[in-house]
């Protein structure tokens, strides 16, 4: 399981006009994301916010699994920690809601680095077990009587959702959505720069050929630890935003299913793809509802079958599919050029 094959090879190149067209499209995407919540109902806005939160969490997992090749079945644990840190920061320390995500991210970065440091010797299946164990144990630890004054124990904690400062113009749901969107954009830009920079190249080298990377002087343990820390940070921020939009947290909110969902979303979008996370997030948010619509009797079976079918059609996720389709088109163009000349 160490060799995660990748949909998009990291290569240099690309002409200038392309860049402009790219930013044009990105601009259009952003425009839709900004206007969207003012067109649809409050519930849809809530759902879109949830998609953004999942996208951030998936991005965290992609940075770990897609770029450094370490598998995690336990990112739900950091999602939970992020959520709890946010709630504690707001209810116990009395800090404003916008301070919660960065603090949650910082705490999770530490937690993730610590865990990553211990787990550097584990690979593949063994790492999968260790991380899955982390996800299984987290709710049990959150329930401990000793922590009850902080975590609220089994009962969980209900928080007052932050309100909009400009109530006449933007309602509370829209405000929260925009807040999540802003955080997401910042995190996506950071991820985008990171994977293209020195760190990203080192991680990819580690993933594709750990021994060669080590001989080239890349500090394997340090980079793996960083990858875990950053991944946990992203997931923790997502957890904090998640609790802001839901307004409730309890140990039961974080079954191991959450971690499995993250993995599913991440692979479906394309494990080493940054924008694929949006598709993956939309999938895990929307498809279960569609499955219930398709079959009242066995929604879970429908979801399972859809999942299998998706993987058979696009084993590299959406990003892999896009990549191969484009590659085929490009080959076609070259052939046409040759035929013409």
């Amino acid at each position, binding site marked *: 399981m160490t060799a995660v094959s990748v949909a998009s090879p990291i290569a240099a190149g690309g002409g200038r006009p392309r860049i402009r067209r790219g930013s044009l499209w990105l601009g259009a995407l952003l425009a839709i994301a900004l206007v969207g919540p003012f067109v649809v109902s409050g519930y849809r806005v809530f759902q879109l916010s949830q998609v953004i939160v999942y996208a951030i969490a998936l991005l965290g997992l992609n940075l770990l699994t897609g770029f450094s090749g370490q598998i995690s079945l336990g990112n739900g644990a950091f999602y939970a920690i992020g959520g709890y840190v946010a709630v504690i920061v707001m209810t116990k320390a009395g800090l404003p809601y916008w301070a919660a995500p960065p603090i949650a991210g910082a705490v999770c970065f530490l937690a993730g680095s610590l865990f990553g440091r211990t787990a550097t010797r584990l*690979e593949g299946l063994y790492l999968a077990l260790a991380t899955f164990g982390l996800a299984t*144990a987290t709710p049990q630890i959150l329930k401990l009587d000793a922590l009850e004054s902080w975590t609220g124990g089994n009962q969980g904690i209900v928080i007052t959702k932050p309100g909009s400062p400009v109530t006449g113009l933007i309602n509370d749901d829209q405000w929260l959505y925009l807040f999540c969107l802003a955080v997401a954009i910042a995190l996506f830009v950071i991820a985008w720069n990171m994977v293209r920079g020195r760190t990203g190249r080192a991680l990819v080298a580690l993933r594709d050929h750990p021994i060669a990377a080590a001989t080239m002087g890349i500090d394997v343990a340090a980079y793996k630890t960083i990858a875990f820390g950053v991944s946990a940070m992203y997931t923790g921020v997502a957890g904090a935003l998640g609790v802001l939009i839901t307004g409730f947290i309890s140990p039961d909110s974080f079954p191991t299913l959450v971690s499995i969902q993250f993995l599913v979303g991440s692979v479906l979008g394309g494990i080493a793809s940054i924008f694929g996370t949006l598709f993956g997030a939309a999938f895990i948010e929307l498809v279960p509802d569609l499955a219930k619509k398709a079959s009242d009797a066995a929604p879970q079976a429908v979801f399972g079958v859809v999942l299998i079918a998706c993987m058979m059609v696009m084993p590299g996720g959406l990003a892999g599919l896009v990549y191969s389709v484009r590659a085929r088109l490009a080959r076609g163009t070259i052939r046409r050029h040759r035929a013409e000349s």
Partner: protein
Amino acid sequence: MQALLHQILSGLANGAIYASVALALVMIFKATHHVNFAQGELAMFSTYMAYELIHAGVPYWIAFFLTLVFSFIVGVAVERLIMRRMQHAPELASVIVFIGLLLAFNGFAGWIFSFTMKEFPSPFASKAWYGTTYLSSHEVGMIGVTLIVLAIVFAFFRFTRLGLAMRAAAENRPSSRLVGIRVGWMLALGWGLASALGAIAGMMAAPVVFLEPNMMGPILLYGFAAALLGGIDNPWGAPIGGFLFGVLENVAGAYLVGSHLKLALALVVIILVLVFRPSGLFGRTVVVRV
């Protein structure tokens, strides 16, 4: 002291369940180098099959062997129809397919058989001479069955040409093809045998944990942890991991941290073991060639 003995024996009985699941995981790992997360749900489905047969009046042991055949066929079918197409897909795509299979089998079982718990008989009479208050007759029988299956699996890989061919096919596909092994069928065979082993685990576990669609979920996690603890490529190491895990969990829960943290503690111990012995207690260390 008596209580400690009781906990250890009870842990061995639970361990037998984890061991039999671990054996199925080893079988499929040796044949395909995959860990099948849907193994538990396949086993649960097979157990329902046995339940239906027994309720139709088929005697227990005949139903038992018919179920093994049925499970073998289901395993082969899954490999031929689904996994075959995933051959060239990335590893993680296969993992997602396993998760999909898990959800699908669970959902279908709930739909067909309902989520109501069913009674599943034990083949071992409850007042047999070998049953005591320390270990019930079913628990003794279950441990016995697990040990027999362990011996068979070990002998299969060690002493038969088929077992050797299967190992070869998993290890190195092109070379195996060159020496005349039909790699495709070896993979299917691995799936079939693993599925049959899983069915045994299911039928032995059902009188203890009771038959319902979610019965194998928790057991699979324990079986997986046990297999890694013992060494997932080792047909006798993995089941020993199962027994160890069962005892460790009980003793930890009763004497060290309390029952609410027993799983957490057991997992921490396993992870520590793996940090120092990355291939498990009895696993073969893999040397990577540069």
